[in-house]
């Protein structure tokens, strides 16, 4: 049975990198005695894949991983078992059966992500934020130099910004393209926003929380974003 697990990563767990979160779950799943399936061959490993690696320093309300079970277990029971053996800061909040097949893998499905960026105490930039956001959204094209491991190229990031607004408590909410087809990081949007206002962002100013990951369940013409967890079914 293929299962999607949702968990939050908060507090001090933000210092644990992606590969170590994977190791964490490999051990937690054993401690919780969840009967997970393994790959075949001489060095079998757990069948487990993550929707989207989260960088060190970021927190999240909704990370997703897909696993394969040898013996099914009820959602409620699995969530309780994993949280009972878990470390402070990682909380499993969802456990759903999802359809088989490569096209249904969380990693393949990711199309967008929500973020909230806060400014660390004393590092609030000296600009009119709402005016800057408005000016940003008014552009039809925002060419930005994007660095990758191999090269640096100019990309128009405007179409990858689906939503951008100030929240009631002065933070910035972003809904951005995410995944293999198009991927935009919130830091880059924020840096660009400040550059457009002619301001250097204060160093180490952003505190970023990822709030949700979405699949695009639209018809290809129109985007329709559905949280990855909503594609599964509770196991009773």
């Amino acid at each position, binding site marked *: 049975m293929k299962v999607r697990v949702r968990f939050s990563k*908060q*507090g*001090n767990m933000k*210092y*644990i*990198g992606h590969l*170590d979160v994977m*190791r*964490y779950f*490999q*051990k*937690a*799943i*054993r*401690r919780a*005695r969840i009967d997970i399936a*393994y790959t075949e061959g*001489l*060095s*079998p490993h757990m069948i487990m894949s993550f929707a989207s690696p989260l960088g*060190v*320093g970021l927190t999240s309300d909704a990370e997703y991983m897909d696993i394969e079970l040898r013996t099914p277990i009820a959602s409620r029971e699995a969530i309780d078992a994993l949280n009972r*053996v*878990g*470390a*402070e*800061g990682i909380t499993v909040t969802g456990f759903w059966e999802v359809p088989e097949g490569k096209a249904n893998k969380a990693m393949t499905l990711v199309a967008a992500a929500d973020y909230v960026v806060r400014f*660390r105490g004393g590092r609030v930039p000296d600009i009119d934020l709402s005016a800057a956001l408005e000016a940003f959204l008014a552009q039809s094209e925002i060419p930005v130099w994007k660095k990758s491991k191999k090269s640096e190229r100019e990309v128009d990031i405007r179409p990858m910004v689906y939503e951008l607004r100030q929240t009631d408590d002065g933070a910035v909410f972003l809904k951005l393209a995410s995944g293999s087809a198009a991927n935009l990081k919130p830091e880059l949007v924020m840096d660009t926003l400040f550059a457009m206002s002619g301001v250097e962002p204060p160093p*180490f100013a952003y505190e970023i929380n990822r709030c949700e990951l979405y699949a695009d369940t639209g018809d290809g013409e129109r985007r329709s974003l559905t949280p990855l967890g909503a594609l599964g079914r509770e196991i009773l």
Partner: protein
Amino acid sequence: MRKLALSDELLQSIEKPARYIGGETGSVMKNKDEVALRFALCFPDVYEIGMSHLGIQILYDMFNRREDVWCERVYSPWVDLDRQMRERKIPLFALESQDPIREFDFLGITLQYEMCYTNVLQVLDLSGIPLRAADRPQDCPIVIGGGPCAYNPEPLAAFFDLFYIGEGETVYDRLFDLYLSCKKGGCSRQEFLRRAAQIPGIYVPSLYEVRYHEDGTIASFLPVAEDVPAVVEKQVQMDLSDAPYPEAPIVPFIKVTQDRVVLEIQRGCIRGCRFCQAGMIYRPLRERSLDCLKEHADRMLANTGHEEISLSSLSSSDYSELPGIVNYLIDRYQDEKINISLPSLRIDAFSLDVMSKVQDVRKSSLTFAPEAGSQRLRDVINKGLTEEVILQGADEAFHGGWNKVKLYFMLGLPTETEDDRKEIAHLAERIAEKYYEIPKEQRNGKCQITVSTSFFVPKPFTPFQWAPMFQPGDYLGFAKTVNHEIKAMKNQKSIRYNWHHADVTLLEGVFARGDRRVSEVILEAYRHGALYDAWTEYWDYDRWLQAFAQVGVDMDFYTMRTRDLNEILPWNFIRIGVTKEFLKKEWQRAQEGIVTPNCREKCSGCGAAAYQGGVCAARRA
């Protein structure tokens, strides 16, 4: 959420911040207001090394079983954080509470290898604890050392209030109870130390005075008062099956060196290799019962979720129930995809059969530790491994599908000659030839033989404790001889050779057999930036040479002399069961090349029988 000692900005600017945040599964949280004694347990190296050490896990678990004690961990901050802490004056803290070490009652530091000594000073320094024990005020944590290097604590004597000689399971409770009653009664620090010296196994360096002869050797080593014992007895946990063992060891977030469950199957060794300190100081051999091991294995695997379990001992093949525990683990855990790792196994039919079940033959390698190239020299060091056994083991392994062999040797052993060194190459060649005797169609490509040599360092409480060392140039010459000889072999393309630095060996030699005067050298080198000396990238020999020159200590005095059998050695005041008479006899037999049988074959009267247990009490055939 636990508040961290380091700021978010600092944590995000250093390597592997997870080293400093604690909160791992299995780590113990208590309320500091509800405990009477706080103990900071330290392994003076980076987190990934320190977290891999079994002894720390045993003590951590044992201390925390006491309701009135909270034991926490602290490791050496890596060089990046070290710099930041000094610059910003951030005090060193314990991982669990994140509270400064300076607020603790005890700082316990395990001494597993000599090259960590500057890291000991780093931990004291960053904690804000005066480096010299004599300068510490009343409210400063009591600094206690333990572990194998505490068997010659003298080079560190100036920096420690106490040393615990032997296995931690026995008298820590007494020490804690004494401390608590002293604390309640308002005793001075000196008074507590004075009373602690009465506890067997506890050594208080400040209560002993050393005088030297003009030639630099020790003239006398005496307690400063009548109620201070002249001799310190090593502590031994005789019944291991009943001893506390962690049921839920800490599971680190980041990958550490020993990322697995460690099952200590026995302590001590029957072999009596003459270079090996562990083989002497952990005598007598004591086994854990099979039932006890099964229970420990089950609990630790269930509580940690580790996917690997490793059997730990000095020589696993000598454990009398080895097939029992190995078969149990295979039967019970193979379906759960738990790897079983079996280090320090002798290569024979049983071990090859087991290894073919638990590992991928094509990827894994076989390890032999002949330690010396020639049979003559193997007899000198009492390594009861013959060439015939090695070749037969290799042959069986090659027929079983293996084609990788690792061979470990030492260079610079007592009585060693040019011929002995060349024999290392010849042995590797004969193993390669064994492989190529197998018909081509039956073998798995080329074989890979890796020869590694280290330079021998004479250690206290071994028959070689009187032996001289060599100059760095000599050591490199020894390695070159081996290298040239290997290059002259027919199958040299199948043989790879690795050797170590020579200068670090000499410093290790000074620390291993040094006396109190060496403390000043360590302090001087530390003040000039020596740190993480066990790490090649931070090792700086010139800095050490300067430190020796600066404080006027002659390195050669500690390394180049053949010590007189009647000399008072710095560790003379410690009793380990094994007697000096036995060590002298063994030193004599070594020079004559006479092999001494192992403890199961025949008791040689080493003195460990005084502990009345373990292999000494078992009926011998």
